[in-house]
């Protein structure tokens, strides 16, 4: 089946009218090119958006309090309330399958004006967070020197701080030793025990590097928060959707704080997982559109191949007649036409794939040279997609050759020989 003579013949036929072959090939080449580029562009957009999620554990929700909008159990509406540290334990006890529940407190500084951190003659305004050690799993960061907060810091209410790269460059000389030095946060001295950097690419990139983390307990003590909890970051175990669990969590909080069960506004939350899923399904749809458009364009190329193969068969009617008179079986002729069709489709498809890859490569190196572009990163297609495309090509080549191959053997040899 795949012997030398057959290949020789395929090449002879396809090169006998080079320009016709090239123009035919172009249709398929263009289709697969469009498919590859569309998929890569979609992937680039996806990469860009997903990068904005950074390394944050996506199965996470954030929850905070607002004022009530319904009177309940003798309490008026418009009442303000705060989460308490005991709420954390309550959630832990009553809602299963949660991985981390991190209570947080915060002093806002960044972009809010007044400087809240002082070191010597240098000042700056930063977000200061009171946190538990688990937060590093929910809002991942890389500790570049020293260490992160641990439970000894929490238990002993040590006034220690982990500062961001941005804070370090603001408050310290280049090359100056950071660890062990003190910074004054709203009049309270904290010892710097570590520095971090975050992998985030979005508009908050600068802000993300200008944060200061201190132990939750020492934060509460230093800034008079008592048992208050500003907000919580809650992550579910893998395999359990936080979107499902959040109902239980919010209900538990409503119960503990005497909020009307139907008060939808008293507890605010942000479900990162839901957002993430929404983005995921958006890209799923985008991918589907890319496939549909690409395959449609490819289809017109394939019809072109089929057309040309029909013409080729017509032109070779007499030759086919001769060959059948000499004793070539109809199957062999059919196979020959099919293989010509598949070969032409695959070769032109490969050209399209190569062309597409070159364009993607070009865009990537352009992106590299001009620096990161918002919401677009590293457009690419996977090997899976490429082999999928080849698969599609193979099948479409087969389909394209099918009608011509059948018409080739439908002509009786005697009629074929009569054609002049």
């Amino acid at each position: 089946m795949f012997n030398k003579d057959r290949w020789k013949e395929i090449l002879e036929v396809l090169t006998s009218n080079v320009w016709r072959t090239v123009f035919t090939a172009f249709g398929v080449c263009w289709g697969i090119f469009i498919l590859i580029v569309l998929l890569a562009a979609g992937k680039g957009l996806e990469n860009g958006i997903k990068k904005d999620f950074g390394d944050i554990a996506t199965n996470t929700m954030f929850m905070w309090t607002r004022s009530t909008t319904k009177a309940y159990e003798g309490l008026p509406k418009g009442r303000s309330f705060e989460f308490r540290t005991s709420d954390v334990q309550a959630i832990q006890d009553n809602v299963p399958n949660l991985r981390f529940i991190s209570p947080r407190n915060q002093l806002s500084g960044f972009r809010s004006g007044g400087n809240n951190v002082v070191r010597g003659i240098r000042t700056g305004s930063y977000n200061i967070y009171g946190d538990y050690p688990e937060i590093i799993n929910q809002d991942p960061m890389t500790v570049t020197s020293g260490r992160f907060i641990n439970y000894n810091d929490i238990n002993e209410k040590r006034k220690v701080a982990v500062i961001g790269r941005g804070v370090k460059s603001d408050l310290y000389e280049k090359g100056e030793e950071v660890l062990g030095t003190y910074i004054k946060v709203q009049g309270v001295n904290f010892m710097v025990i570590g520095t971090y950097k975050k992998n985030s690419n979005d508009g908050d990139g600068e802000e993300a590097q200008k944060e200061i983390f201190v132990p939750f307990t020492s934060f509460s003590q230093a800034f008079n928060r008592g048992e208050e909890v500003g907000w919580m970051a809650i992550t579910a175990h893998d395999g359990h959707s936080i979107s499902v669990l959040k109902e239980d969590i919010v209900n538990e909080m409503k119960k503990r704080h005497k909020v009307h069960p139907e008060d939808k506004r008293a507890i605010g939350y942000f479900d990162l997982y839901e957002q993430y899923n929404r983005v995921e399904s958006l890209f799923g749809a985008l991918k589907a559109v890319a496939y549909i458009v690409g395959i449609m364009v490819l289809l017109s190329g394939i019809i072109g191949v089929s057309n040309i193969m029909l013409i080729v068969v017509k032109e070779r009617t007499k030759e086919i007649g001769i060959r059948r008179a000499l004793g070539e079986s109809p199957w062999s002729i059919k196979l020959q036409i099919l293989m010509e069709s598949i070969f032409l489709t695959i070769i032109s498809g490969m050209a399209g794939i190569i062309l597409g890859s070159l364009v993607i490569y070009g865009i990537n190196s352009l992106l590299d040279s001009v620096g990161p572009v918002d919401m677009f990163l590293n457009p690419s297609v996977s090997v899976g997609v490429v082999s999928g495309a080849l698969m599609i090509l193979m099948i479409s080549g087969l389909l394209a050759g099918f009608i011509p191959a059948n018409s080739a053997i439908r002509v009786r040899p005697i009629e074929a020989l009569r054609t002049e």
Partner: protein
Amino acid sequence: MIEIKDLHKSYRMGSNSLHVLKGINFSAKAGELVAIMGSSGSGKSTLLNILGMLDGADSGEYVLDGVPIKDLTETKAAQYRNKFLGFIFQSFNLINYKSALENVALPLYYQKVGRKERQEKALNYLERVGLKEWATHLPSELSGGQKQRVAIARAMAAEPKVLLADEPTGALDSKTSYEVMDLIQKINDEGNTILVVTHEEDIAHMCKRIVHLKDGVIVEDKKVNQVRAEQYV
């Protein structure tokens, strides 16, 4: 070798039916060289096509070398053609993008003969028709007589039981015609059975037996003294 009994064939043309062969009885023994003559429309080409399994008969019997030829599928017909028959056409019917050697090797390829053996055999047959030096040439680079000789080599390459020649000299001048007939006679001398369709008297007389067809029936079937083509070459 060939046995035909009461062969009928008609073509339908629209609502009319054209009865071309009206009961042909004919037999040929191994080693015969038979000319089939007749004016156009006498049915001689139809007969040859049926003999060549390119066309089927409506009724009647056809036995080739002891094998009844009936109700063949296309695949089976192709196999039989390859095994039993060699064709020589008026318009040569060489495949124009293949060299002389490749053309000759083609029937062997369909017999699934290995590449090397195929080349050797084909070259051998080309040598027998005197065209060994032209092996790599394309048909377009050959003269009419040379093309027909390549076609003869091709017809013989598969070592068929019967060679069928449809107006083998129809497209050639008389000198080349005689050369081709000389070749056909020599092949016949080696014991091959050959049927030649022609309407030229002199070509017919170079065969050993002449069958006259008229309006779909055999009107005359006679042995003749063979005129050797050599003397004209």
